Every structure is written in structure tokens, then in C-alpha cells.
């Protein structure tokens, strides 16, 4: 009987379930390639465009040149916008993390009344459209200025405060995800070995959820850096973030300078991701 089964096998492989599995795998790989192409195509086109020689983008290119990259660095509003964006994104990321890490700890570890509500609120900035958020914060900052007399609207501090809001959901989500996979008895073990709560947090909890914190910081930074809709309401006169500088430039010109500045942005974020992934395996969290 054993040999009969063994003999039946090869015929089955040629026509039966094995072949269906192979077709399925091809279909899956094909769909994945299609999706990836869909995502990468605009990036590839923008990158190509940045190297065109002619001022008005048209196909096929008349030749290639690096002049537009030079134009980026000679453009004051791009350089100023970049510096402001980096400054705001770093500050907002730090503030966002300082709020999101304790909040995630509370939401994943503690059982308290209104826990679900707090969890929902942490994700809220992700759900509310940027324009709505921008309008609301704009109105709030005006009212706050009137009430307190402190300058808020149009200041870097006001912009950072608003950007911290878009960092929070990303940081909270990713830190919570890494906390969920973290055995609480590991913290108990630390306490049992003589570590008070703060030492336990610093030496055990933080290192264990570090990939989540780094990934949250990276995503928060990228979201803040690229934010346009909300920032439009909140920047002061003559001080713009990079996305706003790009928008303003596009109102008058459509030369490849904009493509060049986009390529620089993509490269910056790409390098940040690759560099971070070398030290912390973000792919484990995201």
C-alpha cells in the first residue's frame, strides 16, 4: 500500500494541487509588483524630471542637467523653509514622544475609567482632516492670544505645538504596539532583583520598547516635516515651512526646481529610514 501511494505522487504533482499553488504564487507576486510600481512610479517620474535641462517640463527631455539642484540652494525661501521644517519637526517629535510614551504606558498597562476614550483621543489627530485641524487650531490660537496676551499665532512655538499633535498618534500607536508584545513580568523581575520603578523604567522598559519609540519618532518626524494643510493656517508672515515654500513657488513657476527639492526631500527621509533601520529593526514594529 505504501508503494502505491508513492507511485501516485508524481502524477499528482504535474497536474494537481501543486500547480495551482504555483499559479497562486505568481498571481500574488504579480499583484505585489503592481502595487509597488503604483507607489514608486510618481517618485521615479519626479526624480527623472529633476534632471531635465529645459525649463518647461516636456517629454522627451531635451537634455540633462544638475542646474535645478543648484537653484534649490540659491532659493532663500526653500533653504529657510527647510531649516524651519527641520526645526519644527524635531521639536514636535520630542514633545510628541514625551506625551505619547507615558500615555501609551497608561493605556496598555492600566485599567481605568475612560481608557477607551483616551485611546481614541490619542488617535484623533489622524482622523480629523488637516484643514479642519488647521482651522480649529488657528481659531484657538487667536482666542488664546486674546485671553492671555501671549503671542502664539504665527510663532514657531505655536507651530511646534500644533505639529506635536500630528506626531502623537503615530508615536502612541507604535509605542503601544511594542508594549503589547512586552511581557509585564519582565518589569516585575527587575523589581524583584532590586530595581525601584524609575530604574526599572530606564533600564528595562525603555530599552525593550526602543524600536517602537524610534519608529514612532521617525514616522512622527516625517509626518510633521511633510505637513502642508495644517501649517498653511499657522505660519507667520515671511516664515514658511518647506512644503509651503514649494506650494508658493508653484504658483508662479513650474520649472524642475520643485522636482529637485522633492528629490532632496525623498533622499533625506530615505537616508533617515535606512540609517535608523541599521540600529533598530523598525520592521519588527511597523
Amino acid at each position, binding site marked *: 500500500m505504501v508503494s502505491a501511494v508513492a507511485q501516485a505522487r508524481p502524477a499528482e504533482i504535474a497536474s494537481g494541487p501543486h500547480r495551482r499553488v504555483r499559479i497562486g504564487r505568481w498571481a500574488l507576486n504579480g499583484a505585489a509588483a503592481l502595487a509597488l510600481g503604483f507607489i514608486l512610479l510618481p517618485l521615479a517620474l519626479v526624480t527623472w524630471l529633476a534632471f531635465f535641462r529645459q525649463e518647461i517640463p516636456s517629454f522627451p527631455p531635451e537634455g540633462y542637467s544638475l542646474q535645478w539642484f543648484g537653484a534649490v540652494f540659491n532659493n532663500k525661501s526653500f533653504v529657510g523653509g527647510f531649516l524651519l521644517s527641520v526645526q519644527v519637526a524635531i521639536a514636535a517629535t520630542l514633545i510628541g514622544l514625551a506625551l505619547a510614551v507615558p500615555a501609551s504606558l497608561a493605556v496598555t498597562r492600566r485599567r481605568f475609567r475612560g481608557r477607551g476614550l483616551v485611546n481614541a483621543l490619542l488617535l484623533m489627530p489622524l482622523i480629523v482632516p488637516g484643514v479642519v485641524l488647521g482651522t480649529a487650531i488657528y481659531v484657538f490660537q487667536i482666542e488664546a492670544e486674546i485671553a492671555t496676551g501671549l503671542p502664539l499665532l504665527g510663532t514657531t512655538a505655536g507651530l511646534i505645538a500644533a505639529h506635536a499633535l500630528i506626531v502623537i498618534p503615530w508615536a502612541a500607536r507604535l509605542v503601544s504596539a511594542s508594549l503589547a508584545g512586552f*511581557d509585564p*513580568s*519582565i518589569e*516585575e*523581575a*527587575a*523589581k*524583584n*532583583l*532590586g*530595581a*525601584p520603578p524609575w*530604574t526599572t523604567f530606564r*533600564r*528595562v522598559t525603555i*530599552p*525593550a520598547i*526602543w524600536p517602537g519609540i524610534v519608529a514612532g519618532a521617525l514616522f512622527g518626524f516625517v509626518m510633521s516635516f511633510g505637513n502642508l494643510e495644517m501649517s498653511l493656517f499657522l505660519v507667520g508672515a515671511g516664515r514658511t515651512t518647506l512644503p509651503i515654500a514649494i506650494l508658493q513657488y508653484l504658483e508662479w513657476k513650474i520649472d524642475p526646481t520643485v522636482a529637485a527639492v522633492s528629490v532632496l526631500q525623498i533622499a533625506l527621509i530615505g537616508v533617515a529610514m535606512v540609517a535608523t533601520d541599521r540600529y533598530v529593526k523598525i520592521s519588527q514594529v511597523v
Partner: protein
Amino acid sequence: MARLELNHLSKRYGDNAVVAGVTLDVADGEFLVLLGPSGCGKTTTLRMIAGFVEPSGGSAYIGGVDVTYLRPWRRNTGMVFQSYALFPHMTVAENVAFGLEMRKLSKTEVVARSREALRLVRLEGYADRLPRQLSGGQQQRVALARVLAIRPDVLLLDEPLSNLDAKLREEVRIEIRELQRQLGLTTIMVTHDQEEALIVADRLVVMSEGKIRQIGTQRDLYERPADRFVAGFVGRSTVLQGRVIAPGQFETAGGLALQCRDGAPGKAALVLRPERIALGVANGMDNRLSGTVEFVSYLGDAIELHVRLSPADRVVVQLANRGETTVPAVGDAVDIGWQRDAGLIFAE
């Protein structure tokens, strides 16, 4: 290494008493096992000793010092967790050194004592590995080394073997017991596995519903169980329902008249250990009965027969496997017997 005393230690959540007054005195160097089904309060008791659960009442003393409300990091207990709870981002050596660093020992002493602890669990060559690079059994030994390094007053083991496969479990429990004896560590282990408990313990505590049912040696629990719960939980047993009709006389629900130990007249249960019932030659037995084999389990070292004595009474008989060629089969008529003292009587 110290003596541990619990006095009426209890834990309530609202109206629910998870631990309802546990009193224990564990001698210096003794290995005590808390045994019971899940939800009996054994783990909560252990966690109160470690300081992770604040007692609702009673007191706990380690080495004569009141630790009832002392924070976990201020008492010198060493706990091995079911999940091992190793620090995933630290190497084996760093894991073991952690407790010593918390004690602010000098660097040379930290290194010396970590190395000594790893040597005790035979993992000297693994100091630079990360926990995820080790097998379950090795991780378990790192967790043990980590608490041995701090030389705890009391070693606490929370189902330390339940994540290991059966073969490894047998090795590791003997290893733990030998280490404990060698180092003279006062040890409390929690388990629901009675075999494990019987092998390692000096004394056992059987718990159910937050209360201690019995404290004693293996022999005490097996030969003189305090109640039917203990009799049923420790070792295998058959229960015959019925009543004591006169001193030393038991009548089963199926109408069998049996001789038994003295017990108060009235409704009762007769508990029999399977290996105390003899098959065949029933000469000199106080109780001699015949019945039909309904089920046979061949266990290797032993053979178990389920024998029907009356429509309402069935007993399990265990025979040591000495290589006899004829083993009763299902449907065979057999004679069985037991001495009157073999049965335990519990009033219902």
C-alpha cells in the same frame, strides 16, 4: 536563606477572597510546594511573598523581619517566573549581573558572582548570548542563575517548569532540587502538577479556594489526606459513594457490604487507591468481591483495570507490570480484594 512565616495572610478583591487567611511556617533551607488547581490562590500567595500583591490582611516575615507591606525591590526574594522574564535586550551575563548592580557591588564582585551563578547552572560558555538565542531550558537556567546570584533570603518559583517539554522538565526539576539543597535555600514553589510537587518537596501545602486544605509530607498527604479534596488531588483514587451503617461497616450505593476503617455513621465516601486493590488470589483479604472488567489501560509499568462490582459501583485496580503473560481482557470476570485499612472514609 531565612525562615519564612505567613500569619493569616489574605487577599480580597471586593467581596472575592482570593487568599483567605494562609498561615505557614517555612524552615530555613526547606523546600515547600504550594499545590492546587488553578484559581486556588497559590500564585497570589507567592506574589504577596514577593511583594507584587499587597495583602488585605495578615502579615509576612522573612528572617524575622516584617515584610508585609515592603516594596518588592526592598525585600531580598528571588523569583523565577513561568515565562522566565529575561531582559530581552541584555546578554546572559548582563541579565545575571542586573541584581548585583542594583545592590551596588563592586565591579569585580559583580563579575565573580555572575560567573559563579552561571557555573552553578552549567551555562559558563553562554555569557555573551542574548536570551532569544537560547533554548527554553537554557533560558530557564539563566532565570535561575539571575536569582541565585543575588543570594536571596527566599527563592520563589512560579510554575518554573510548565513551559518545558516533559523530558526536559524531569531533568530540570531534579537539577533545581539539588541546587536548592546544596545552597540551603529556603524555597517556595507553586505548581499544579502533583508529580512535580511530590518529587521536589520537603513538605507540601494543598490549597483550594484560597484556603490551605492540608500541610504535610508526601506520605502524610497520600496516606492520611485531611479531606476528600486532598485525597482526590494527590495520587489516583476511586471513590465509592454510600454510607457507614455501623462502626467499620460501609454499604455502597450499589448495595455492597464492605469492611472499612471506623467512621461516623451516615452518608460517606470510601476512597480507594488503585494499587492497594489486589487481583485474583484474594486470600486473607478483608473485602473479597467479584466483578467484570470494563476497561483496560496498558500504561507500560502498570496495567489499570476498571472493574464493575455492581450497577452503581466501579473501582480502578492497578497491577504492577511484572511481565505476566495473561492480562484480563474487557468482559472477563475477575476476583478482587483489599484490606479494610486500605480504604479511607470521609463523611459527606
